[in-house]
């Protein structure tokens, strides 16, 4: 059944033929992060796809993945384009290197999972929190519930982790 849901005023749609995205978001709805692992090469990949981007393998299985990592890069949006985000600037889009599989299949690679910087309850982060985060910041995954069977993953500062001094864009 097609899911059509409102999130921050945006209409998100998942058709019932979304056989890769539907399970992904269903796991997210249980606040349980799962990704596809290729049966042929054993590598995990993201986002959900029809086959393995590393080896082309067609078969995969869903596996639980720990949502912890460090910020690989980011942007910080001060002029929102989408109406949904106009009231939330500045907001951050984080590209996070997961700890699992970092440095695979090559030293320059990792599973890099996108999310906004949010508070622990999945709400877009306030400006003072945005200023604490940069490249290197340790983060943990949290979820924003959209509706039954549908949540999207985000990132919040991992307050239990040893935090390096983050690299931030030099102009504040």
């Amino acid at each position, binding site marked *: 059944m097609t899911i059509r849901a409102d*999130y921050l005023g*945006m*209409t*998100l*749609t*998942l*058709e019932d033929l*979304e056989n890769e*995205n539907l399970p992904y*978001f269903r796991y997210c709805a249980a606040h349980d992060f799962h990704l596809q692992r290729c049966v042929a090469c054993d590598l995990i*990949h*993201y*986002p959900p796809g029809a086959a393995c*981007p590393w080896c082309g393998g067609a078969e995969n299985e869903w596996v639980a993945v720990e949502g912890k990592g460090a910020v*690989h*890069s*980011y*942007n*910080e*949006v*001060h*002029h*929102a*384009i*989408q*109406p*949904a*985000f106009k009231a*939330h600037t500045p*907001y951050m*889009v984080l*590209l996070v290197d997961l700890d699992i599989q970092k440095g695979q299949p*090559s030293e*320059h*690679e990792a*599973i*890099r999972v*996108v*999310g*906004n910087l949010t508070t622990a309850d999945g709400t877009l982060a306030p400006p003072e929190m945005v200023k604490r985060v940069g*490249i290197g910041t340790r983060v943990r995954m949290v979820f924003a519930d959209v509706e039954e069977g549908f949540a*999207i993953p985000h990132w919040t500062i991992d307050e239990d982790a040893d935090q390096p001094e983050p*690299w931030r*864009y*030099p*102009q504040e």
Partner: protein
Amino acid sequence: MSSSAETDGTTPKYLRDKYAIVGVGETPYVRGSGRTTRALGVEAVRNAMADAGLDNTEVDGMLSYSSGDSTFAPFIAGDLGIRLNFYMDCFGGGSSTEALIGIAIGVIEAGMCKTVAIFRAMNGYSQVRIGGTGARSAAPIVGDQIHQRAYGWQSAGQMFAPTFMRHMYDYGTTPEQIAMVKVIHSEHASNNPKAYYKQRYTVDDVVNSRIIVKPLHLLDCCVETDSATCIIVTRAERARDCRHHPVLIQAVAGRVNKPRMDLHYQAGPISTVAGHYAKDILWPNAGVGPEDIDITGSYDAFTFTTMLQLEDYGFCKKGEGGEYVSNGTMRLGGARPNNTSGGHLCEGYTHGMNMVIENTRQLRRDIDDSCPIGPDGKRQHTYDYGEGGCRQVKDPELTANLGWAMPGTGSAMVMRRG
């Protein structure tokens, strides 16, 4: 890399110098054209045909690219009385120009037609905004798009920013170095009567303009305009009968991708762009290297895109792009000027076409600046690059165009004065 290096590439080297750009044309760069993309496209193709000295019986192929924001080739051809033996309308934006020039060579070589007009017609300001503002910004988000747009990660600047940011982190590139791209392109635009923005800017102007999405200030972002542009490609032997000195195509690389272009942030160093791969096709096919190039046209959707491409095509060492774009090399009068028209940052936004048009005119040594026209009908270039002055580079022989769609996809072309 040795300039004589021979590696496998997409263009068989026997096609080097066998094809030429014989006509270029455009409409004015404006905001609010008050005309349809059909009317704009017809004018640009007509201007390019006149520039080439070709009539409507001599153009029989047409290519265009768009993203649902333009008019298809058969309508443009019909309005010009052109009977087509071949046409194709492709989906895409930046990096299409050089790729379609390569396709034009291919279809002529295949005997499908003789002369191809490539056009891009867009009301990029008054109809479909390239920055994604307006109706498109509030469109429903479906399927795979959720992984990006639901995070407010949608516009080109938002999407490319992690690559720009990581380059600063990896190599110490500074905002002031990058701002020099805008400074230099604005100097060039001040000598271009066609440019939408002719004002010269300083580094302070750029880094003090408001932040759009870090690390991009307003003045790091290109202009949105309404315009159409056209480039006509034919065989070199036919070019000799055309109006202008022939400009020969030495090599093209078209829509070369990083691994996993659909989400290139998953693969390899994200501060490296598609030019890293395209250069291994471009330079061997051209038979020259970056050190041989007199003028570059490096796509400037943003200041950073110019820098990243110049670096990854080998105009400087990896990581030294910030130094390269700020040391004066790419200024008119410098060793290798870049985007002498002012490019997308200042002249107007055409998804890459205007940078190829500019380099074509540079190689004809007949750039359309404000220098006086002599008794032979040609401009008497002064090579005084002061504001409002000349923008003709002295005696250029070789140019390189580096087209950008996104960090993961790029196209390129080397041209030579015939």
